[in-house]
């Protein structure tokens, strides 16, 4: 009996300790005010050429990185890039360790439900990757039924495959999906076309792979915390820089001008 009392008492202490931390003042500050007060816009990215990648001197460049820098400047704050684990992007946003996700992010229903998204600014497609010697065999969507696919978990490619009711194994990243095909553990992979153009074919580790059918056209947007007023501010910024041609100029320097969406 005595032991039980001691046990319960200990548990009560432990619980009250955790409860202490629970009080926090939720201020009525908008996200814009929060970022301006902090003086930095923290942009969550992954290493994803040509949108966000490291230049020769080690600074972050790319179409998304440059636009993010220009947007931060228009707000009068510093831009700061942080590499994140793509699976944890919503956690990072809600946990305030980043302020936006600006990394060639496809606007899927999952994304628009969990983030406050900007208007789409770029087009992209999901393409099927197969070994080069299989290229002739797989030319239309109907040819794909017997293949075992690999695709990034939670990606637009995985969603497209599920929609077609094809056999898909979710893997951690798009590059893991490529490795599956290279290693022969999957017959084919689905990744986005910007990445496919940069990563398969001559001069890469995947010179034996090639891309064929495009499964789905998709659009890129920028994600903010749910309810953030920064999304509207960014829409205005994108519209303005599209109108004055600075967005096109930036896109041309990274070779993505063909994918821009008219604002």
């Amino acid at each position, binding site marked *: 009996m005595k*032991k039980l009392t*001691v*046990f319960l*008492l*200990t*548990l009560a*202490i*432990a619980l009250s300790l955790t409860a202490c*931390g*629970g009080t*926090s*003042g*939720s201020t009525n500050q908008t996200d814009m005010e929060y970022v301006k007060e902090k003086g930095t816009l*923290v942009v969550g990215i*992954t*290493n*994803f*050429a040509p949108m966000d*990648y*490291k230049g020769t001197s080690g600074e972050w460049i790319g179409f998304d990185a440059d636009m993010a820098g220009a947007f931060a400047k228009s707000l009068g704050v510093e831009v*700061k890039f*942080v*590499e*994140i*684990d793509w699976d*944890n992007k919503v*956690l*990072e946003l*809600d*946990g*305030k*360790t*980043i302020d936006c996700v600006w990394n060639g992010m496809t606007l899927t229903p999952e994304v628009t439900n969990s983030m406050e998204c900007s208007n789409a600014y770029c087009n992209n497609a999901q393409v099927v990757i197969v070994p080069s010697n299989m290229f002739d065999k797989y030319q239309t969507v109907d040819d794909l039924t017997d293949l075992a696919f690999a695709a990034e978990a939670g990606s637009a490619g995985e969603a497209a495959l599920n929609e077609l009711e094809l056999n898909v194994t979710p893997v951690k*990243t*798009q*590059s*893991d999906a*490529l*490795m599956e095909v*290279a290693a022969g553990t999957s017959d084919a992979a689905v990744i986005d076309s910007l*990445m496919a153009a*940069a*990563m*398969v074919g001559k001069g*890469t*580790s*995947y010179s034996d792979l090639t891309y064929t059918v495009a499964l789905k056209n998709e659009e890129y947007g920028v994600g903010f915390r749910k309810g953030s007023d920064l999304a509207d501010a960014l829409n205005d910024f994108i519209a303005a820089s599209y109108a004055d041609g600075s967005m096109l100029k930036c896109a041309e320097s990274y070779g993505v001008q063909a994918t821009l969406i008219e604002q």
Partner: protein
Amino acid sequence: MKQILEQLPIVIGALNVGFIQTLKLFFITLIGAFPLGLIVAFGAMSHFKPLSYFTRIIVWIVRGTPLMLQLLIIYYFPGLVLNTPIWGSGESGRFAAASISFIFNYACYFSEIYRGGIQSVPVGQQEAGLVLGMTRSQIFFKITLLQMLKRIVPPMSNEIITLVKDTSLSRIIALQEIIWAGQAFMKGSQGISGAIWPLFFTGVYYLIFNGILTILLGRLEKKLDYFR
């Protein structure tokens, strides 16, 4: 092969940067967890029951949940639930959160090893100390501690070598340790994209470092041999 030779200097440079993070996390965890583990062991062995139960519950929670989950909770919980992102968003914040998680986790494992070591010293020796008029702290430091140290070296070596490899879990909160650095070349980094081999090459770093540790810990064990 020629391509790999051309890429080698760039890859090694990047892996070295990642491995320094791995090593920093490794040593900080050891420096923090060695003393904290001893404190936890004393807590668990305390004659004051509430303290003993409380410590054992903490050890149960920490050893009973995956380290990966603890990393996620420690890094994201303050911002998500308490609305105060104490870690900030930079590399240093991620490193601090990873260090705290690892120190806590390993202190709990170490505490059980310490407890086993302390309790393996026969009670008769403590009684002998009491008869000779030694104080409790004298008995601990002059009789128990050194014999305990000798006995815990093999199980500690196990944990220390596991720790070297466990540091790779910290990539879940985007700490850029060596596995992260190796994986970066799969997507594309510093002009190399779609390269798989750097990821597997990180294994060489782990092997060499663990080899050195094994030799050093073996020597330590020999040095402590005179306790038998």
